[in-house]
């Protein structure tokens, strides 16, 4: 399945591993913060409406 990377297998696979991990972490952190802030804003707006 994985192509024969010869003597450079470690740097090539490490490059893909590190990069994909960093990018996945960035996407996850962005989604998580987006969700948290959206919910927190909804809570504040609901509270303000109920308080008149």
């Amino acid at each position, binding site marked *: 399945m994985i192509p024969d990377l010869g003597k*450079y297998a470690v*740097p090539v696979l490490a490059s*893909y591993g590190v990069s994909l991990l*960093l990018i996945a972490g960035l996407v996850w952190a962005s989604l998580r913060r*987006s969700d948290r802030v959206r919910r927190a804003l909804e809570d504040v707006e609901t509270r303000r409406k109920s308080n008149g």
Partner: protein
Amino acid sequence: MSLNALWEFANPRKFIATTDRVLPWVAWAAALMLVAGLVWGFFFTPDDFRQGSTVKIIYLHVPSALMAINAWLMMLVTSLVWIVRRHHVSALAARAAAPVGMVMTLVALATGALWGQPMWGTWWAWDPRLTSFLILFLFYLGYIALWEAIENDDTAADLTSILCLVGSVFALLSRYAVNFWNQGLHQGASLSLDKQENVADVFWYPLLATIAGFVLLFVALVLMRTRTEIRARRMRALLARERMQA
């Protein structure tokens, strides 16, 4: 669309309404292009006659380095818009782009080190391009820290915009360092309109696909993060109003 129509997106409500429709398409296109480009490059391209299989690192290193520089240039444009026209959305877009640019710089530095070790015999050298890239990374850290350190949003936007102007020198240096100083280990541009200078077609097409994927990923993340910053700013304003009324 006229230039005046573009300013409508400076309205936070309009920005959120428009990105509600656009963001899913951009995100899916980014995922598609990234997977297609990386699978094509990793599984279906041959080894280079000089660099062997390490040439596969090009599909991560070049797009990430490209985005590291262009993210800062995008921040420069939006910071200038803030300074000149005081549109909050543009300042928040610059803030939203910084962590994305920082991660892209980190990916470029990490893949560069992993590529450099087998090819140059060293993980790191104080080469003009490598050094200017490291300084660009430090500028990203400083820019993000400055936003976090200042409580008042407008003051933070003012000061970070100035920092962005200063950092632009290093963003441009990291792109043209090889041309300015004809020394160091790093090669010249891998992408060029000059056929002689450019990489071979067999590497070029999957590289274009991954570059498109990285650009779309950057756009998707910046749109999403800008929406978050707009909401966070509104929340801070509402909470401040509540405190004043209490």
